[in-house]
């Protein structure tokens, strides 16, 4: 187990290093000079040069990469070109919206998907199976921003149960904030839950056809006990993979939903950073997202080992 975790951790570190290199180089080759963008098209040549010096853009590439990397390790993400405030401040303000939203959506999606998949698989071919399959088909097909707008028009505009958007801030109290995040989380969770439910269903069906299920039945376990005691944990292994991938998507991919609900999240920050050539913000946020994704994958790997003794004790 220790060896497994150490190996996984080494993989994590190397992935992070490679990713940082790729992100840095890509943004270097993207056209657009941050200095001229900040000063406007009429800027004088020497003003530009001074600006570039101030931003550190005149230094060689390798040196800038290393100082960026070193800064990040010490928590210094640099100063935003456009906002003129430390990037870490910008990120910190937003991550407390994006992260809870992603976790909230993921919990919702798992809470919906796992029971739905369970019901569909254990009642294969019956009405409940068809209902789950039909609904999830719909859930995958409907664009989530459209679904978000429907939610807003019903629950916020007609029924007035929730506000239509915006975020009050965590100092206003936990439940008020959760209320503001509920509709966006539902909108995000629906397609994810649909995919997850289908994965859960097919994984469970596959598991139920295994020999050890027949063994359990031959020992006298009822169908229901067999599903719980033997099939469920085995079926969870592929589901874990998908949950890991979905979390990565939810934390970074919520741009559209954040826009629909006027949530100042990471997605919007990165979007603004790109349009304003605020390279340092883009670099830092992308790196942060990569870090989150790789960490989640690491956690999923550990979860695999906890579920599956063949990884823990090869």
């Amino acid at each position: 187990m220790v060896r497994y975790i150490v190996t996984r951790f080494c993989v994590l570190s190397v992935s992070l290093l490679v990713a940082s290199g790729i992100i840095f180089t890509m943004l270097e080759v993207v056209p657009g000079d941050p200095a001229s963008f900040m000063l406007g098209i009429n800027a004088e040549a020497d003003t530009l040069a001074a600006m570039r010096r101030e931003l550190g853009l005149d230094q060689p590439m390798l040196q800038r990469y290393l100082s960026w990397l070193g800064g990040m390790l010490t928590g210094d993400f640099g100063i935003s070109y456009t906002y003129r405030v430390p990037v870490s401040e910008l990120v910190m303000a937003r991550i407390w919206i994006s992260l809870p939203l992603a976790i909230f959506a993921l919990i919702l999606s798992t809470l919906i998907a796992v029971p739905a998949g369970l019901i569909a698989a254990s009642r294969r071919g019956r009405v409940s199976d068809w209902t789950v399959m039909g609904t999830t088909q719909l859930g995958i097909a409907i664009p989530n921003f459209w679904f978000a707008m429907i939610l807003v028009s019903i629950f916020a505009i007609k029924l007035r149960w929730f506000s239509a958007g915006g975020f009050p801030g965590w100092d206003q109290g936990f439940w008020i904030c959760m209320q503001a995040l509920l509709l966006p989380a539902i909108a995000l969770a629906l397609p994810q839950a649909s995919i997850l439910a289908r994965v859960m269903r097919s994984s469970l069906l596959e598991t139920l056809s295994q020999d050890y299920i027949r063994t359990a039945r031959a020992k006298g376990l009822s169908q229901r006990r067999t599903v719980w005691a033997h099939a469920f944990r085995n079926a969870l292994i592929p589901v874990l993979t998908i949950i890991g991938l979905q979390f990565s998507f939810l934390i970074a991919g919520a741009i559209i939903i954040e826009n629909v609900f006027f949530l100042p999240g990471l997605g919007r920050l990165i979007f603004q950073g790109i349009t304003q050539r605020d390279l340092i913000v883009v670099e830092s946020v992308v790196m942060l997202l990569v870090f989150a994704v790789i960490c989640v994958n690491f956690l999923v790997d550990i979860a695999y080992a906890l579920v599956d003794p063949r990884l823990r004790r090869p």
Partner: protein
Amino acid sequence: MNPLLDIKNLSLDIGGTPILRDISLSVGHGEICGIAGESGSGKSLTALSVMGLLPMGAQRRGVVRLNGNDLFRRSEAEMCQIRGREIGMIFQEPMTALNPLKTIGSQITETLHTHSKISKAEANEIALEKLARVGLGGGRISENTYPHELSGGQRQRVMIAQAIAWQPALLIADEPTTALDVTTQAGILELLRDLVDNEGLSIMLISHDLAVLADMADHVSIMENGAIVEGGATEPLFRGHRHPYTQKLFAAASHIPIQPLAKFREPLLTVENLRISYRKKSTKLFGKATKFEAVSDVSLQILEGESVGLVGESGCGKSTLARAILGLQPIDTGRIELAGATIASVNNPEAEMRKGKAISSPAGLQQIVFQDPYGSFNPRHKVGRLIAEPFHAIPDAPSGKEMVLRIDAALEEVGLSSTDRDKYIHEFSGGQRQRIAIARALVIKPKLILLDEAVSALDVSIRAQILDLLAELRVTHGLSYLFISHDLSVVRAITDRVLVMLNGQILESGKTSEVLSAPHHDYTKQLIAFTPQIPADWISQ
């Protein structure tokens, strides 16, 4: 005294298709009742009908009584109480029949917890006792072991331990030793016999292997197409089998194809001082990888037109050796030469190591036929394309019309027709698929064909046909065979010479008839002793 299990006129339909017809048999107290038959004859479904574990859409009729208790009138909840408590069951595949995520201890105690409210400590105590009963006690195997840490034989013992945890009166064993090596099989059969003799267990033993049943069963029922064609006490049945199907089955089981006269000339394959090792990763942090030698210092020769058997249990290095002969396996040191061409040669491992291990394969001199006729074909290609595949291996491959002609010729030689060329593999039976596999090997006219357990997955009657075909092809094409198998009866039937392999080394070699009748090495003696056989005086008449 009433029999323990009494099956009367059991019939079964699945989705309207009749599967079983009028099955009647009984298992007495302390008896072993054998059921024999080929795949698809309904052996397993008979057992599952008794257990009430049939697939959806199954309709069963008739009467099945266990100790006078009519099982077909019991509700599902009542059946759950009977399964595991009054009837235990074990299956063919010990590798997949245990849940990989649970410890063996917890899988044994589960049987106990399902049927009563006993404490954890009590259940654990019984589990340990049962592990000891099946020969895994004495602290050798902890109850906290996971199934993947055990060998096939040990897993089958765990299966037995959990099936007998509640001391059921009846154990249904569905091909319990088919997937195991001869020596392991002998151990499991001995354990089952011991449970019958000393604990009064009754067993319904399902097997396709008549020799196993001859050794174990008190009486045997022979099944064909969902019906029992003949049944009775084992010895009289084996001595005087009357039904045409039973006669066919017995003839096929001991079938020996007509062998060509042995006149071998030049050596075709030469293997000299072959060593192959794998690196085994350590499970400890910073632990050193260890070297595991799968083939150690093996030398052998196959002459032109000769059929050589290679026997040994799983893990002895047979398959690694075969891969090296095919040119698919990097070797450490040694030399493999086939018809004058070098397949692999490493003299100075230090120098070769730096270049990476050397492999090269001469074009199309050797081909292979695998065990599994279902898994060894791409299901999305037509048969013609599957057979044409080895043409990639030879420099002067025919194309267009000529290629089609060659494919048709190969198909006809294995007893199929040219119309089969445009079909897909799922349209064929297991035996036909193995014929296609042979056609695929044959199409580029190789000198040597490796047969890796090529008839092990086939029913006896199909196996007899394939053995005949192989014998015939050997004469017409002057082929040499390397016949890898754990089944001594097949090796006896088709090979001139036999090599016995253990732990990567060849222990003994010589003429098949001599080695098998007068083995020198202890391991060979053991192998022969453990192979179940129908007593000679039962068949000699």
